[in-house]
C-alpha cells in the first residue's frame, strides 16, 4: 500500500512537470509560428509586448480568457463544452509514455525520465490516443449546430481514419526492426549500432516520409487543414467557439504539434541520444548532467521539427478534398504496405 | 498481488451481458441495438480475459482478438446496412421496417 502511494506521488510530480513544460512549449510554438510566418511573408510580426514581442503568447492567453464565452443557439451545451476538453486531454495524455532522456541515478534510486517510459505497450498507447483524438473535433463540429462546423467535423473524422492506417503500418515497420513496443527500447536500439548513428530515418526513409505526411494529416495542419479551411468552411469545427474554449483547441493544436514532433524524433531521429558514447566527453551514464544534456538535445530536435511544421504551413497550399483522399488511400497506403513487406524481408534476411 | 475472486469478474460480465440483452430487446433505434450488441460482445471478452488470467492460459486472450476482429467486421456491415436502410426508408427504427409483413 505504501509502495503504491510513493509510485503515485512520483508519477504525479512527473506529470505536473511534463504538463507545465508542454504548456510552455505550446506558448513558445505560438510565438515561433507568428514570427516565422511574418518573416516568410516579409512582415515584422509581433514586436510590441516585451523585447522582440516575446511576451505576446501571455497577452494572447489573457485576451482569450477575458473574452465572452458564447454557446450558440440550438447547440448541444454539454458536448459543445466537452469537445475542446477531449482534444486537449488526448494531446497531453500521449506524454504518459514518452521518455525524454536515459534514466538517472540519485543515490540508490533509478529515476525514469518520463511518467511510464518502459511501458511495453508504448507505441500502441500513442496510436490508441491519437485515434481517440478525433472525437474532439468531430463532436465540436456536430454540437455547434452550424453547417460549416458539421462539414469540418465530418471531414476531420474521415481524414483521420484514412491516415491512421498508413501511420500504423509505418510504425509497424519500426516495431519489426526494434522488436519492441517500448519507446525507450526503440531509442536505445537506434543508439546501439553504427556508433550511435543508426537512426531509423537512414534505414526507413520511405517509412519516415509516410509517417511525416500522416503526422501532418493527424494534427490537421496545412496542407491537410481541410477541417478548418478558412476560405471554404470559415474555420470549420471551431467557428462557433470563442474565449477559452477556442483557446483550448488552439492549445491542443500546438500541443499536438509538439507531441507529433516528439514521436517522430523518438521513432526516426534517434531520440535523445548523443551521436557518440557519453563517456567520450566525460559524462557518466546515470548522472543528472547527462540527463539534462540529453533532454536539451531532445528538445532541440523537437523544435527543429516544429519549425518545419510551421515552414510547411506557410509555404504549401491546401489540398482539395478528393486529392487528400486519393493521396491517403491510393498512394500512402500501398507505399506503407510495400515498406512493411520490404522491411519484413530485410529483417528476415539479416536475422538468418 | 491481485486477490479478487474470479466470481466477481464473471458476475460483472453476466450483469453487463444482461444489460446488453435488455438493450437489444427494448430499443427500436437500430444504432442503439447495434451498440447493445457491442456491450454483449464486450462482456464476453471480459469473461474470456478473466478466465485466461486466472487459469494462466493464453487461449482466452487469443479468443478476444478474434472476437474483436469479428466485431470490427460486424460494425462495418451493420453500419452499411443502417445507412442503406436510412436511404431506402428514411427511418432507422427497426419496427418500422415491415416490408415483408405487408
Amino acid at each position, binding site marked *: 500500500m505504501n509502495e503504491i502511494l510513493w509510485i503515485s506521488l512520483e508519477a504525479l510530480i512527473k506529470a505536473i512537470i511534463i504538463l507545465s513544460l508542454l504548456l510552455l512549449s505550446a506558448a513558445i510554438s505560438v510565438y515561433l509560428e507568428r514570427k516565422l510566418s511574418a518573416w516568410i511573408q516579409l512582415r515584422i510580426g509581433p514586436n510590441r509586448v516585451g523585447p522582440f514581442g516575446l511576451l505576446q503568447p501571455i497577452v494572447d492567453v489573457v485576451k482569450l480568457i477575458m473574452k465572452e464565452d458564447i454557446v450558440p443557439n440550438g447547440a448541444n451545451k454539454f458536448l459543445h463544452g466537452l469537445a475542446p476538453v477531449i482534444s486537449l486531454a488526448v494531446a497531453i495524455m500521449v506524454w504518459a509514455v514518452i521518455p525524454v532522456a536515459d534514466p538517472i541515478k540519485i543515490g540508490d534510486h533509478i529515476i525514469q525520465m518520463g511518467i511510464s517510459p518502459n511501458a511495453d505497450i508504448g507505441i*500502441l498507447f500513442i496510436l490508441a490516443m491519437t485515434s481517440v483524438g478525433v472525437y474532439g473535433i468531430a463532436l465540436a463540429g456536430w454540437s455547434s449546430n452550424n453547417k460549416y462546423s458539421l462539414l469540418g467535423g465530418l471531414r476531420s473524422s474521415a481524414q483521420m481514419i484514412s491516415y491512421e492506417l498508413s501511420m500504423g503500418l509505418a510504425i509497424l515497420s519500426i516495431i519489426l526492426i526494434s522488436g519492441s513496443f517500448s519507446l525507450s527500447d526503440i531509442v536505445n536500439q537506434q543508439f546501439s549500432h553504427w556508433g550511435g548513428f543508426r537512426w531509423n530515418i537512414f534505414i526507413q526513409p520511405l517509412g519516415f516520409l509516410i509517417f511525416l505526411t500522416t503526422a501532418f494529416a493527424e494534427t490537421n495542419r496545412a496542407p491537410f487543414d481541410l477541417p478548418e479551411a478558412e476560405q471554404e468552411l470559415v474555420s470549420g469545427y471551431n467557428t462557433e467557439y470563442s474565449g477559452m474554449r477556442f483557446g483550448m483547441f488552439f492549445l491542443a493544436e500546438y500541443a499536438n504539434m509538439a507531441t507529433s514532433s516528439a514521436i517522430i524524433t523518438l521513432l526516426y531521429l534517434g531520440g535523445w541520444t548523443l551521436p557518440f558514447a557519453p563517456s567520450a566527453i566525460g559524462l557518466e551514464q546515470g548522472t543528472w548532467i547527462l540527463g539534462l544534456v540529453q533532454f536539451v538535445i531532445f528538445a532541440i530536435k523537437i523544435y527543429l521539427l516544429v519549425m518545419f511544421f510551421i515552414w510547411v504551413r506557410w509555404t504549401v497550399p491546401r489540398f482539395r478534398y478528393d486529392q487528400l483522399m486519393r493521396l491517403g488511400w491510393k498512394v500512402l497506403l500501398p507505399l506503407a504496405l510495400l515498406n512493411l513487406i520490404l522491411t519484413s524481408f530485410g529483417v528476415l534476411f539479416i536475422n538468418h | 498481488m491481485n486477490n479478487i475472486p474470479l466470481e466477481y469478474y464473471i458476475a460483472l460480465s453476466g450483469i453487463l451481458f444482461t444489460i446488453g440483452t435488455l438493450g437489444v430487446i427494448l430499443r427500436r433505434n437500430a444504432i442503439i441495438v447495434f*451498440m447493445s450488441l457491442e456491450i454483449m460482445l464486450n462482456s464476453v471478452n471480459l469473461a474470456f480475459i478473466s478466465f485466461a488470467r486466472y487459469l494462466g492460459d493464453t487461449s482466452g486472450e487469443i479468443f478476444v482478438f478474434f472476437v474483436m476482429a469479428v466485431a470490427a467486421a460486424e460494425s462495418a456491415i451493420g453500419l452499411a446496412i443502417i445507412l442503406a436502410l436510412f436511404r431506402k426508408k428514411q427511418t432507422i427504427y427497426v419496427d418500422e421496417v415491415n416490408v415483408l409483413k405487408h
Partner: protein
Amino acid sequence: MNIHLIAFIVLGILAIASAIGTIATKHPIYSAMSLIVHFFALSALYLTLQSPFVAVLQILVYAGAIMVLVVFVIMLLNLNEDEKQTIRIQSRNSFGIVLAAIFFIMIVTFIMSNPLNQPNSTNVYNLFTAQSLGSVLFTKDLVAFEIVGILLLSAIVGAIVMAKKKLIN
C-alpha cells in the same frame, strides 16, 4: 479492503452505469458517448487482469475505430432525440425483461452452485505480452488467423457494395 478491490469496484460500477446509460438515453449520440466510457472502463478492468496488450487494443479497436464509425453515421444521418418513448411496456417488452431476468438468474445460480476452482494466482504478466501472444497466434492458431483475414476482407467488400447508391435504387 485492498487497493485492487477498490479499483475493481469503482471500475465495475462505472462499467455498469455507462452500459445502462447506453441503452437508456434518448439521444443516440449520448448512447455513443456512454459506450465510449464503457469501453474505457473495460480497458482499465483488463489492466487489473494483467493484460495491458488487450487493454490497449480494446481502446484502439473499439473506441478508436468502431465508435468513430458509429459517431460518423449518427452525424451523417443527423439523428435527433428519439421522438418515441424510450421504453414502452408492451407484451414483447415484458417478455424481453422476463427473458433477461431469467438469464441473469441462471448466471448467478451457476456461479453460486459451482464454486469455481480457486485458481492459481500466479503472475501472468510475462505470459500476456505481445511477444508471447503473437507467437501463439502465428503458430497454433494460424489457420484461424488467416480465416479472420478473409472475413475482414469480405466484410469490407460487403460494406462497400451495400453502401453504393446504385444498388439501392
